[in-house]
């Protein structure tokens, strides 16, 4: 029976969320005909299962609170309050907020443990807020300095946002709803 090349399986396995990696890789292997068909199958399956895991692991209300919290953190970290005459005032704070939220969503999609410890959650938040700051420093500085937050705002906003989300997640711990206990037969 033909099997997909090991390197292809490794690549697809890396792409798939750990919670469903085993069975999806097995199903793809069972349906294997040739490399092209395997690649098409894998590329159509991966986004769906990632989105499915994100939906499972994300509480809509906590996510909304997180979004508001991050946005307000960057506003609070700003030395100057947003001016009504500034056309980019709201966009400037929205960009790092969106980046942080996207990273948090992806981390939710790839969460692999039923009992997520505070350390993992803290790391998730640090990565998300770091990405938000990084976007400011790297992307915007190179292309659109007019959309950058002023001076210490990214770092202060990141620090405030980090503390706020940790507090939020401590009050509302993430409810991990994995497909089923990853039980194996003895």
């Amino acid at each position, binding site marked *: 029976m033909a099997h997909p090349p090991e390197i292809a399986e490794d690549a697809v396995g890396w792409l798939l969320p750990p919670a469903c990696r*085993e069975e*999806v890789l097995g199903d793809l*292997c069972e349906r294997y005909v040739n490399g092209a068909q395997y690649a098409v199958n894998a590329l159509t399956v991966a986004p769906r299962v990632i989105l499915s895991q994100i939906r499972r692991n994300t509480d809509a209300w906590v996510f909304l609170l997180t979004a508001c919290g991050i946005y307000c953190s960057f506003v609070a970290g700003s030395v100057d309050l947003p001016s009504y005459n500034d056309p980019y005032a709201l966009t400037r704070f929205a960009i790092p907020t969106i980046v942080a939220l996207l990273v948090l969503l992806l981390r939710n999609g790839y969460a692999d443990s039923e009992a997520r410890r505070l350390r993992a959650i803290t790391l998730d938040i640090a990565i998300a807020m770091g990405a938000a700051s990084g976007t400011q420093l790297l992307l915007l500085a190179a292309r659109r300095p007019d959309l950058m937050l002023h001076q210490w705002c990214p770092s202060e906003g990141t620090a405030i946002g980090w503390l706020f989300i940790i507090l939020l997640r401590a009050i509302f711990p993430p409810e991990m709803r994995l497909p089923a206990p990853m039980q194996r037969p003895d």
Partner: protein
Amino acid sequence: MSRSDSLGVFEQVVLTALLTLRDNAYGVTIREKAEQLAHPKRVSIGAVYVTLDRLEEKGLVSSRLSDPTPERGGRAKRCYRLEPSGRRALLDAAVTAKRIWDSAADVWGKNWAKNGAK
């Protein structure tokens, strides 16, 4: 059944596939059966995973990992099973479908489905 618990057409198809496959219901076989049921529509395995995930979250199906097999590269299958609430939901959907069928047959005649397909 509340609105949030009502079944979509594809959910009904997947539940019916689980009902007929019994102990052999996992990703590949469910997709094949669902494609037979949804003919002539194509069914992607990704859509099947998402639907099974949603049905499991609703508590209509349950799953467990089975033994790894060589044809799957030594990987386990996730086998699915209809829960009693899933059976009830499917039964409700089937009863509604039967009522629709009977009502349509009263107006269009008994061979309406066959004639309509031509």
